[in-house]
C-alpha cells in the first residue's frame, strides 16, 4: 500500500508494473533520433482526419490501441483512464477515449500530464482501488499552434527560446506488480512561479518546478542523484535544462551527466529547426513509451526519475500579462522491485 514519506512523496510498496505501452508520432518525430523506436508513425499529420483536433484524438486512439493490444487487454479490463492534453477542455483525450467505455478522469497538467496520469494510475493500482489503469496524453503541433499561437499559414518568426510542440501520443497500462518496469515512488509537485512571462520561453518558466520537485523527492527518500541512472525531465528544452542544472547546483545537487530531457531527445536540434527543443504533452509521453520504458524493461536502464514539467498558462492569462506558473510531477521507474543493496 502506498505510504507517504516526507512531505511530498509516496512510496508504492506493491510496486505496480507498467504492463504495456504504446507510442505514435508523425513525420517530424520519425525524422528525429528516436524515430525508429515509435510503434506507429504516420507521416500524414492529419492522420486521415478532417481537422487537427480530430487528428490528435486519432493519435490517442492509436497509442491506447497499441498499449492494449501489446498487453492483450480489452478496454473493459481497464478500471480507470487518466488522460489529458493541451487543448481547451481536454478535447483531444475526450474524443479519443469517447468510444472505449472506460471510467475517465480528465487531467490538465500541460506538458507534465504524462507524469501526472502515470502517478495517479500507479497510486490507484498500488492501493488496489484499480486492477488496471490507463495513462495517456497527446499533443499535436497544429492543434496547439492554432490554439496558443498563430494560424499555421501565418508568417511569424519563432525566437530561439521557442519550443516545437510534438505531434505524438503515448499510453501506458499500469497493473499489479508483474514484470519490469516497476513504479516505485511518485512525488506530486507544487505550483512554482518565478515570474517568467515570455510564452516563447517555457523551458525557463518550468525549470524551477522541476528543480523543486527533484529536490523534494531526493530529500523525502534520502537518496542522491548517484542512486539513479537517469533523471529524465519532460520538455525543458535547451534553455530550461541549462537553468535546471544551475538551480540544482545552488541546492548543492549535482546531476553529473545523469540528466536527459525529452524535449532534447526527440528532435535533432541542429537539423530539424525546432529551436530550443520539443514540448507538449505528447513529447514526454511518446519519448517515455517509445525509448525509455523498453530500456527499463530490458534492464539496460535501472532506475529512472521521470519528471515531466508543465507550463500552466492559458492564452487568456498570457494576454492579461500574468506570469507563467510551472509544475513538475515525478515518477520513479525501476527495472527492479527493490532498491539495489537494500534487503
Amino acid at each position, binding site marked *: 500500500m502506498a505510504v507517504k514519506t516526507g512531505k511530498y512523496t509516496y512510496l508504492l510498496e506493491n510496486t505496480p508494473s507498467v504492463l504495456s505501452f504504446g507510442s505514435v508520432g508523425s513525420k517530424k518525430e520519425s525524422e528525429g533520433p528516436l524515430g525508429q523506436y515509435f510503434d506507429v508513425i504516420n507521416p500524414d499529420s492529419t492522420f486521415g482526419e478532417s481537422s487537427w483536433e480530430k487528428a490528435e484524438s486519432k493519435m490517442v486512439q492509436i497509442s491506447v490501441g497499441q498499449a492494449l493490444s501489446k498487453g492483450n487487454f480489452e478496454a473493459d479490463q481497464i478500471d480507470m483512464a487518466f488522460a489529458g492534453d493541451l487543448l481547451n477542455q481536454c478535447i483531444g483525450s475526450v474524443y479519443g477515449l469517447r468510444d472505449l467505455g472506460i471510467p475517465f478522469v480528465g487531467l490538465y497538467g500541460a506538458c507534465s500530464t504524462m507524469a501526472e496520469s502515470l502517478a495517479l494510475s500507479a497510486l490507484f493500482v498500488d492501493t488496489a482501488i484499480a486492477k488496471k489503469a490507463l495513462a495517456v496524453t497527446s499533443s499535436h503541433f497544429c492543434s496547439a499552434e492554432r490554439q496558443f499561437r498563430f494560424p499555421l499559414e501565418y*508568417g*511569424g518568426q519563432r525566437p530561439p527560446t521557442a519550443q516545437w510542440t510534438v505531434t505524438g501520443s503515448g499510453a501506458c497500462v499500469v497493473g499489479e506488480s508483474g514484470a519490469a518496469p516497476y513504479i516505485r515512488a511518485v512525488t506530486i509537485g507544487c505550483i512554482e512561479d518565478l515570474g517568467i512571462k515570455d510564452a516563447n*520561453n517555457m523551458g525557463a518558466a518550468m525549470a524551477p518546478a522541476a528543480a523543486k520537485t527533484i529536490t523534494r523527492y531526493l530529500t523525502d527518500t534520502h537518496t542522491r542523484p548517484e542512486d539513479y541512472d537517469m533523471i529524465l525531465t519532460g520538455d525543458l528544452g535547451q534553455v530550461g535544462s541549462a537553468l535546471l542544472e*544551475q538551480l540544482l547546483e545552488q541546492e548543492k545537487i549535482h546531476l553529473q551527466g545523469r540528466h536527459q530531457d525529452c524535449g532534447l531527445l526527440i528532435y535533432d536540434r541542429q537539423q530539424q529547426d525546432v529551436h530550443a527543443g520539443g514540448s507538449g504533452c505528447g513529447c514526454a509521453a511518446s519519448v517515455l513509451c517509445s525509448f525509455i520504458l523498453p530500456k527499463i524493461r530490458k534492464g539496460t536502464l535501472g532506475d529512472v526519475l521521470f519528471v515531466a514539467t508543465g507550463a500552466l498558462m492559458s492564452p487568456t492569462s498570457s494576454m492579461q500579462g500574468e506570469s507563467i506558473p510551472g509544475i513538475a510531477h515525478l515518477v520513479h521507474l525501476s527495472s527492479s522491485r527493490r532498491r539495489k543493496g537494500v534487503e
Partner: protein
Amino acid sequence: MSPTPQEYNKMSQKAAPNSKLFRNMLVAFLIGGLICTIGQGVMEWMQSLGLEQKDCGAVTSISLIFLSALLTGLNCYDNIAKHAGAGTLVPITGFANAMVSPALEFKREGMILGVGAKMFSIAGPVILYGSAASVLYGLVLAIFG
C-alpha cells in the same frame, strides 16, 4: 535557497540564446527590399500604361496582396517568413498574410465565426488603430487647419 524572481529573470536571460540579429536583419532587408522592388516594377508598368498616379498605387497594393494571398494558400508564405522575419511582415504582403492565414486556418469553425470573424484577429487592430490615428489627424486639420 531558491532565487528571487529578479535573480531568476537574470539567470534565464543569460541562458537564452541570442537571435542572430545581424543575419536576420540582412535577410529581412533583402526579402523586404525585393518585395518593394516588385511593387515598384508593377507601379512603373502601370504608369507606362498611362494610369493615374493614385490608381497605380492601388493596383500595386492589390497585386502584392494577391501574390501574398496565393502564397499563403499554397503554404509557402510561412516558409519564406520563417527566414525573412520582418522582411515579409512589414510590407503590405504581411498585412495580407495576417488576414488570409486565419481565414484559411479557421474555416473548419464555419464561414461566419471561423472565416469571417477570425480574418480580423491579427489585422483588425491594424485597420482600427490606423483609422483612429487618421481620424485624429482629420479632426486636427478640420479644427485648426
